[in-house]
Every structure is written in C-alpha cells, then in structure tokens.
C-alpha cells in the first residue's frame, strides 16, 4: 500500500536554543511539542499518536515523555535509527495515519550534548557489551569523526574527490547560515578557511564537521481531511523510503556509498517525481563528505561525481542548481542531540510553505526532499528519505 498523499505535515517547530544548561531534556521535548502543536493551530488533546526515538527519550518506550506532556495516545512508535529517526517517523506516521491507527501524530526530538560536554565526534563512546559488534570494534577507537573520515579517504582514493570539493559543502551552508539569527556559526567561510582549519581525522578538517548543539524540534503529521481544515499551507508527504546498510560479515564493505542509494529510490518511486522536480533538498550534513555521498546515492549526480557537483556554489540558494540546507544545516546552524534528521524536515517544510528566510527562500518551491542517515556511514546505518509537495 502506498501512503502517497495520505498524510500532511501541518506543524513544524525548531527550538531557538543552542545551549540549554538550565532546561531538562523532557522540558525541551515539551517545549518543541508545544511549538509544533501551536504552529498547526491544534491543541494538546488533539494528539493521538506519538513518535519519538528511544535514544533521546530515556525510560521505557516513550512512556515517560508521554506522561511528562500528558499525551492521551492510541498509537506510539519509538523507533530509533539515530539521526535519521525523525525522517523514519514521518514515514511511519504516514503509514499509521493511512491505516487509521491515529489521526494526528506528534514527532519530537531534543538533546543537550553541548551542556553535557559530550565530545561527540572525537571521543569513542562505549555502548552495551551485548551489542554484537562492540567487542570487535570499540577497542580500535571508532569515534564519529574518524568513521566518516574513512569514508572520505576511500571516496578520494576511488573517485579523486578533493578536500577543496568537500569544503564547498561547508561554504554553501555558511552562506545560508549568515541569515539565520539562531545559527551557531553565522560567519561566511571560504574553501581556504575549511582546508586550512586543523585536521581532526584525516582527511576531515575541523570545518568539515558539524556543530554540537542543544535544542530540538517537533512535527505534526495528520490526515488530509484534518490538514485541509487547518489554516497552514498544505505540505503533503508524497514519498518515503528507508533502508539499512551494513557489512554482511565484512564481505560487502563499501564505504563509498550510503543506504540513501536504496531509501532514495523507494521514495522517488512512490512520489512519482524526478530529480529535476526537486526544488530544494535538506541533506544530512554531519560532515561535508556525508552530503557528497548522499547526493550521489540519491541520484542528484553520477556516482563518484559528488565532489564536482557540490563545487562552485552549486548548493547555494539563488546561485546553484540544488539549494540545500538553507537554515545553515548541521554544519553551521545546529545539530540538536547529535541527531540531524528533524531539522532537515523542518527546513524543507519552511521552504514549501514559503517561510524560509527571504534571502534563501527558493522561488516556486513546490517539491522538496529531506534525507538523512543515522548510525555511522563507517559501520552500519539507516538511511531515510521523505519527499514532500506543496498543495
């Protein structure tokens, strides 16, 4: 069963905070929920479905967070695929709504790694020893930065991608961030700034890496009849896809592409649109290489040509062919809870509503794509793609 057109995103809210030492995780979730519910013109008791990721809602199965907010629910889904969770949730919410399991779904994300002093990128984090791969990998020091760096190293080796090409991703994000009053890094940077910043994990430099921020975001997804009764512009979900990529016992290790190769194909097929129809793309930007690989995987350019594709401002709104991450993205704006999927959907919704900053608003933005990866491109991950249309 296709869910094309069976769900609409009617509420979207991004928390303005980037550092929240005095606000609890649960309070951040509640504040973004309130923001999205009010954005939609609904009230708390209209919510009957709740989608959150287990990893940023501690306690069993989202219960504690439903309790904190006093949600009365008939459907709950705490699927956690890391940073792509919230893109997955949009697809799952569309499915639940199409199946009649709930009518108005709330999706929330929040996190405060900055206040907690988490060195996300450079400090390997010990997990549960029952995670089957942990004993065979953790001792070798897999942090986030060196995992994505190994993808970049191989991509450079195999396709001739350069550090200067990767830097263009950051340059484009910074051009957008300058107009975002909430962005952590609003200063426009050059290719030279990026390649001259210190190496963190070869070949990735400090400015190839996203920020670490507190914050969060929320979405409201509902069925067509309710969406059309509200006063907000109509943003219809027309295609979703998810996919898992791993190593198949080390036999299939290929770090030059991501699960987006499969999730994107599924989303495009369901939506029935072509790449040239996509006016704006939110692409998960944990690192510059993440964007290059995912653009190839989604089919915006040939495999191996991502470096060339992103060069010379091709991702800058009003300049290039594919405006991306017009909020400044994870590279410059924020990366709440080290999970970037939520803000990817939110900025796509802003673009489709015509509510992005005027300096970065894409003209006639009728179809947009949001894509993310959760887990690690260097080991195993879940890719999720959502294609939306303004009605």
């Amino acid at each position, binding site marked *: 069963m296709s869910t094309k057109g069976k769900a609409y995103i009617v509420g979207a809210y991004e928390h303005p905070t980037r550092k929240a030492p005095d606000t609890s995780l649960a309070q951040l979730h509640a504040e973004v929920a309130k923001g999205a519910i009010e954005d939609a013109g609904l009230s708390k008791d209209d919510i009957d479905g709740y989608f959150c990721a287990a990893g940023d809602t501690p306690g069993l199965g989202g219960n504690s967070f439903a309790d904190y907010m006093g949600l009365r629910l008939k459907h709950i889904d705490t699927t956690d695929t890391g940073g792509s969770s919230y893109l997955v949730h949009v697809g799952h919410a569309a499915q639940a709504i199409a199946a009649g399991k709930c009518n108005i779904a709330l999706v929330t994300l929040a996190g405060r790694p900055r206040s907690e002093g988490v060195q996300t990128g450079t400090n390997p984090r010990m997990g549960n020893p029952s995670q089957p791969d942990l004993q*065979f990998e953790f001792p070798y*020091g897999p942090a986030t930065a060196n995992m994505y760096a190994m993808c970049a*190293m191989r991509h450079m080796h195999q396709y001739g991608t350069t550090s200067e090409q990767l830097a263009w991703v950051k340059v484009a994000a910074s051009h957008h961030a300058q107009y975002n009053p909430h962005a952590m890094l609003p200063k426009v940077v050059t290719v030279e700034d990026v390649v001259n910043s210190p190496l963190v*994990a070869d070949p990735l430099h400090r400015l190839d890496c996203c920020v670490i921020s507190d914050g969060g975001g929320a979405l409201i997804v509902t069925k067509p009849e309710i969406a059309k009764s509200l006063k907000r512009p109509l943003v219809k979900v027309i295609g979703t896809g998810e996919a898992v990529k791993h190593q*198949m016992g080390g036999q299939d290790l290929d770090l030059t592409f991501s699960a987006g190769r499969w999730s994107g194909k599924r989303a495009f097929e369901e939506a029935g649109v072509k790449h040239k129809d996509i006016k704006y793309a939110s692409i998960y930007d944990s690192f510059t290489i993440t964007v290059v690989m995912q653009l190839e995987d989604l089919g915006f350019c040939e495999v191996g040509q991502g470096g060339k594709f992103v060069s010379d401002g091709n991702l800058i709104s009003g300049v290039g062919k594919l405006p991306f991450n017009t909020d400044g993205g994870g590279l410059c704006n924020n990366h709440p809870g080290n999970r970037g999927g939520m803000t990817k959907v939110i900025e796509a919704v802003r673009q489709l509503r015509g509510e992005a900053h005027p300096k970065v608003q894409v003209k006639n933005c009728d179809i947009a794509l949001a894509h993310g990866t959760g887990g690690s491109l260097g*080991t195993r991950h879940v890719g999720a793609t959502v294609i939306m249309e303004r009605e």
Partner: protein
Amino acid sequence: MAGEERIYPVVPATPGSEPYWEAANAGKLLLGYCKPCKKSYYYPRGVCPMCLSTDVEMRESKGTGTIYTYSVMRPAKPPYVIAYVTLDEGPSMMTNIVDCDPASVKIGQKVKAVFKPREDGTKIVCFAPA
C-alpha cells in the same frame, strides 16, 4: 608519532565469542567460516550473515591483507590510525595500523597481523606494514 602505544580497552566477550579472544591472546586471528557458503566472514558469530546457517565454525586467518581505508585520529593522545583491512580470505575488518609512522600509511598497503596488549594484559589483533 610511533613509539607511544594505545592502551586497548577490554570489552567483555559474549557467550560464543570466547574462542576468538583466547586465540587472539595466543597470537591468532580467527574468522567465522560458513560451511554451506564456503566463505569466511568477520566478525565471527554463531550464524552465517549471508545465509543464516548455523553450520559455522571459526578458522584461523593467515593474518595478511590490504588497507581498504584509514584515518589518523589527531586529537587523541597518542594519535592513532583506525582502518579497515581487507583480509586475503575476503572479509574486511576494523582495526588499528600500528608500528609505523601514521603519515606513511596508504590505501592498498600490504599489512600483517600483530598482537598488542589490552588493559588486562591479554592481547588484541592489530595490523602493521608487511
């Protein structure tokens, strides 16, 4: 940068993985081997990830391979080289490249297994230039 070595943390073995760690401590790298597929896999586990057969065993690797990709973790003290090595038996595995100048490491380089001490004195496999 060579000279100062990482101290390898101990992650507890899980039921079924003890032979791998006992072998590592004795200077041997074990791979999973699926008898129906006639293929090796890594990490070793009680089912073949290709066909889900439980007709599997652990077999000793020659311990030779090629660097598929790598990265030098600069902020770490000491900096270390994480890598995937594609073993001559087929599977690729995450590891560290040791006993060399990190700046000399290259994709495609031939490497061989070496065994380094963990925090508890037992050993773990790493790779060094062949």
